[in-house]
């Protein structure tokens, strides 16, 4: 470029000398008659000339001379000065012709001379030259390269350019150039100040001398006069600044401030052009303008002005097919269109949206600008909101206001950072295998629903939060342990109705009272609901299931596929046809009509979805009770009875998230021989209910769940029936129960020609031999056959029916308090005893008084004689005795790992927590001491 410039200068000089037109013509012909080597470059003449100038053997040579590092230029200048000095003194000049210092070549200079000794002679007496080092000849083919400078495209800092500071406290900060003085290599930039007021104050008072400046970088914020006043900093208002042409305020007679910004004059070398300032950074400048009294102008207006100042940057002009564009240059300015395709040469083919322009038009990308109309759905490509999809709600010049469909927030972005969302090359709503609104297991057994995904972080709403205080946590991909599916999981609402994924629920209390939403996920009684009217967190609300009421909307799925799926999940059994279920529902609906209308608070729509449960409940008081298994594989487990046949019960275990079938004799449950006839009737009509909808989801039981069975038991669905059992024949309906234990089923399958009665045995427990089996040929005899059956158990079922043992805590369903049977209590008299029974609704308690003795300063119940008196007291007179170490305890309040009624051993006490080994599962759990009560064990 430089050589060309110079050539042009020379040419100009020649032209001026050539007055004669003919001479000029001749000269031009001479020049342009030469063959064109590089067509179209326009630099032909210069290049050809330059070609001719390549060094030849006759030209002087270049020699490489070693000099002191950093003294290259100085040496070169000194040689020049030496020449001048010699000329002034009239001495003969040196025989070198030139010397060259390249900026990038440290420690060397080139010297041009015919011979090496000329170089050596010229360098004699020169400082900084390493005379001992050899002078090397530059090969002729390297001479051009030696003295060429590869100039890079240098972008120039201009007024209004956005720059970044290279050094100092503002390092990396964005600044706007307000004035440039190329002559002095200086510019004035506008910065968001980082003023260390305290340091300035110290400096002013002379205290700063000993102090080192704080290592902490002061935050960037607009100048606060109040702060300066507080520290009594000198502040001069309205001093006219010539370079800015405006009045500025001067802080501490050094810092120039204008409208709260720092107007800093600095060397051009300390700034560099900012590639692409983000809108967030630019907004700092825009918002600042607003704060400074320009109340009339809105910030977005200032933003638009900013966007104009940023200008079009070539690197940003990336269009994609489908982009809506507007032409900003040329005759077709303001014409709108849609990008049809991008040609390989970078030109953009646009389909104009104009009724009279039907042809595709080709533009350079500089002539176009993205232009999204209000209402179009777009995706953000760059910046803080990258990946967000939203709708354009407002357009101001180059700035679009986007309303995110995911986060329900409005924000502003530059048009050129947007793309049509249809053209989703990569929309960020997944992180690894996790997508938005997925339920994921986190570290520490926490679970959260992903409510927002950003570049490399997902925001999850964990199950620890409540609607009023949601716990949102950003997590990295590696913190997400696994994806959870709620498809087969259900929960129970405030009315004990089943909530499934996809159910419509209504929130009954708290901030979102009466908000309706769809259940997205269920986990251990916690729901993540997607509510349309909720603005925060993308409309996701995390709430306990018992704080919701299910709408009628999910009933269809309950009867049909939903139920089937649940049954499959829970019991691994093939589902019945939906039609079958409907049949049953019509049968039972009449039966339950009265009950329903009485007991239901929530309005319900037909068809009823729970079969048999309420109807049967009237017949069998066992359903809903919590019992302990006394024998069999489930010995020691406590569960709530959800279904009863005359031979077995379905037990929803408290300790494990599943429902099991237990032989009836294995429970502390009376046989119901007298009522068998009544059982047979419904069974014959396929009315056989089983807890099909009981899913393992109910591990932590809510208090309501434990005792308070409403007549309308949502979970009761017909899962099994006589006709469905492949091994049962109609003649032996009473034996239709197929144990789910593997031993039982295996046995059943291997004995096709079985006799009816024996099948009802709990084969898993008894491990019957064919012989033993054969004996129990009649249904009646079958009970006696079972080891552990009532006949052989000391104090068989008949005794159990009336005196509930303290261990198997049994209490009225409507009692929700903490004084459960077996709980050791202290009466107001100071005497201690244990509760033997609870009257309905907890109106009174029977307490068996024992003798207590002080131990470690605490009265401890020691013995309770069999003949001890029983007192009938009310709740007010009772006080739970804090259990000591290594005692048997009963959980009286539901808490995380155990539910009310569970028993265990208190291993040790850790502050407010007790370490309890649950007797049902042998798991060691940490429970609040307030949940525990001492349990009396004989």
């Amino acid at each position, binding site marked *: 470029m430089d050589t060309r410039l*110079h050539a042009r200068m020379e040419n100009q000089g020649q032209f001026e000398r050539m007055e004669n037109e003919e001479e000029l013509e001749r000269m031009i012909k001479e020049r342009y008659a030469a063959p064109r080597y590089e067509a179209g470059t326009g630099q032909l003449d210069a290049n050809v000339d330059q070609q001719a100038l390549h*060094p030849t053997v006759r030209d002087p040579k270049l020699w490489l001379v070693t000099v002191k590092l950093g003294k290259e230029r100085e040496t070169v200048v000194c040689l020049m000065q030496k020449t001048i000095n010699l000329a002034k003194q009239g001495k003969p*000049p040196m025989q070198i*012709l030139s010397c060259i210092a390249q900026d990038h070549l440290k420690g060397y200079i080139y010297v041009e001379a015919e011979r090496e000794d000329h170089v050596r002679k010229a360098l004699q007496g020169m400082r900084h030259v390493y005379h001992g080092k050899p002078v090397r000849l530059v090969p002729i083919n390297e001479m051009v390269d030696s*003295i060429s400078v590869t100039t890079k495209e240098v972008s120039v800092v201009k007024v209004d350019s956005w720059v970044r500071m290279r050094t100092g406290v503002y390092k990396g900060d964005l600044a706007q150039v307000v004035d440039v003085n190329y002559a002095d290599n200086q510019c004035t930039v506008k910065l968001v100040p980082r003023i260390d007021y305290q340091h300035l104050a110290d400096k002013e008072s002379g205290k700063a001398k000993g102090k080192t400046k704080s290592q902490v970088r002061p935050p960037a914020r607009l100048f606060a006069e109040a702060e300066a006043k507080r520290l009594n900093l000198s502040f001069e208002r309205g001093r006219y600044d010539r370079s800015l042409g405006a009045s500025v305020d001067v802080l501490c007679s050094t810092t120039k401030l204008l409208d709260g910004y720092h107007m800093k004059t600095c060397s051009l070398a300390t700034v560099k052009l900012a590639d692409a300032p983000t809108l967030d950074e630019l907004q700092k400048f825009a918002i600042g303008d607003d704060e400074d009294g320009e109340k009339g102008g809105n910030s977005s207006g200032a933003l638009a002005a900013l966007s104009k100042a940023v200008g079009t940057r070539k690197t940003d002009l990336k269009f994609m097919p489908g982009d809506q564009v507007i032409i900003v240059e040329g005759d077709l300015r303001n014409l709108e269109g849609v990008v049809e395709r991008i040609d390989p040469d970078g030109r953009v083919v646009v389909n104009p949206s104009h009724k009279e322009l039907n042809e595709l038009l080709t533009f350079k990308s500089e002539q176009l600008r993205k232009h999204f109309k209000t209402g179009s759905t777009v995706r953000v490509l760059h910046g803080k909101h990258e990946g967000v999809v939203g709708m354009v709600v407002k357009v101001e010049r180059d700035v679009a206001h986007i309303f995110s469909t995911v986060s329900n927030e409005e924000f502003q972005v530059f048009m050129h950072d947007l793309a049509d969302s249809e053209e989703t090359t990569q929309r960020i709503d997944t992180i690894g295998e996790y997508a938005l609104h997925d339920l994921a297991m986190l570290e520490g057994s926490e679970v959260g629903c992903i409510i927002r995904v950003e570049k490399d972080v997902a925001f999850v709403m964990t199950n620890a939060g409540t609607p009023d205080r949601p716990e949102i946590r950003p997590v990295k991909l590696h913190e997400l342990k696994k994806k959870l599916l709620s498809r087969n999981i259900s929960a129970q609402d405030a009315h004990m109705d089943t909530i499934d994924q996809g159910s419509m629920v209504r929130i009954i209390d708290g901030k979102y009272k009466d908000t309706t939403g769809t259940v997205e996920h269920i986990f251990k009684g916690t729901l993540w609901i997607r509510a349309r009217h909720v603005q925060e967190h993308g409309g996701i609300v995390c709430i306990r299931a018992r704080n919701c009421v299910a709408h009628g909307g999910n009933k269809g799925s309950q009867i049909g596929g939903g139920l089937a799926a649940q049954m499959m999940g829970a019991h691994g059994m093939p589902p019945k046809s939906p039609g079958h279920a409907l049949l049953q529902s019509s049968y039972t609906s009449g039966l339950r009509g009265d009950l329903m209308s009485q007991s239901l608070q929530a309005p319900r729509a037909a068809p009823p979805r729970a079969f048999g449960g309420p109807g049967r409940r009237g017949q069998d008081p066992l359903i809903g009770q919590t019992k302990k298994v006394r024998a069999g594989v489930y010995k020691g487990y406590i569960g709530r009875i959800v279904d009863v046949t005359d031979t077995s019960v379905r037990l929803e275990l408290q300790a494990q998230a599943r429902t099991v079938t237990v032989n009836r004799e294995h429970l502390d449950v009376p046989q119901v021989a007298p009522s068998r006839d009544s059982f047979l009737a419904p069974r014959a009509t396929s009315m056989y209910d089983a807890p099909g909808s009981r899913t393992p989801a109910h591990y932590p039981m809510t208090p309501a769940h434990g005792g308070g069975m409403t007549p309308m038991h949502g979970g009761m669905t017909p899962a099994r029936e006589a006709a469905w059992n492949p091994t049962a024949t109609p003649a032996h309906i009473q034996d239709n129960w197929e144990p789910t234990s593997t031993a039982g089923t295996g046995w059943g399958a291997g004995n096709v020609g079985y006799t009816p009665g024996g099948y009802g045995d709990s084969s898993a427990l008894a491990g019957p031999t064919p012989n033993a089996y054969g004996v129990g040929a009649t249904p009646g005899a079958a009970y006696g056959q079972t080891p552990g059956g009532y006949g052989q158990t000391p104090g068989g079922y008949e005794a159990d029916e009336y005196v509930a043992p303290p261990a198997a805590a049994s209490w009225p369903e409507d009692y929700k308090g903490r004084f459960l049977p077996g709980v050791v209590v202290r009466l107001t008299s100071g005497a201690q005893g244990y509760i033997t029974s609870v009257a309905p609704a907890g109106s009174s308690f029977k307490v068996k008084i024992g003798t207590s003795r002080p131990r470690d300063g605490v009265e401890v119940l020691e013995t309770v004689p069999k003949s001890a008196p029983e007192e009938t007291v009310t709740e007010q007179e009772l006080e739970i005795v804090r259990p000591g170490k290594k005692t048997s305890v009963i959980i009286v309040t539901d808490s995380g790992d155990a539910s009310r009624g569970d028993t265990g051993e208190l291993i040790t006490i850790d502050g407010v927590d007790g370490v309890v080994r649950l007797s049902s599962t042998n798991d060691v759990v940490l429970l609040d001491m307030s949940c525990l009560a001492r349990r009396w064990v004989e």
Partner: protein
Amino acid sequence: MGANRSASEVRKLAEAPLNFGKGSRACLYCKLVQTYEQFIDNGCGNCVTLNMKGDKDRVSELTTSNYSGMVSLLDGRASWVGKWLRLDTCVPGCYALSLHSSTSIR
């Protein structure tokens, strides 16, 4: 515009820059390197027509400190470097190898 040079002017020498670091500046037209003060005192040895002598504003306008490389041209006519850099008709002196400033284009 242009640089008229007579034979007598070529014989003359340009002063070597007294400062060769940041304080030096190069003529946008002939790349002659001098300090700001030298330009004011002497003008440009080649570009006399630019009338930089004594005119601070013109010196600021027509010179730049943004250059790279330095050539001391002792005998422009005999030197291949001088020819290659098209400095062969310039007065002996220190020249910049290249100018960075795009403002050099007029």
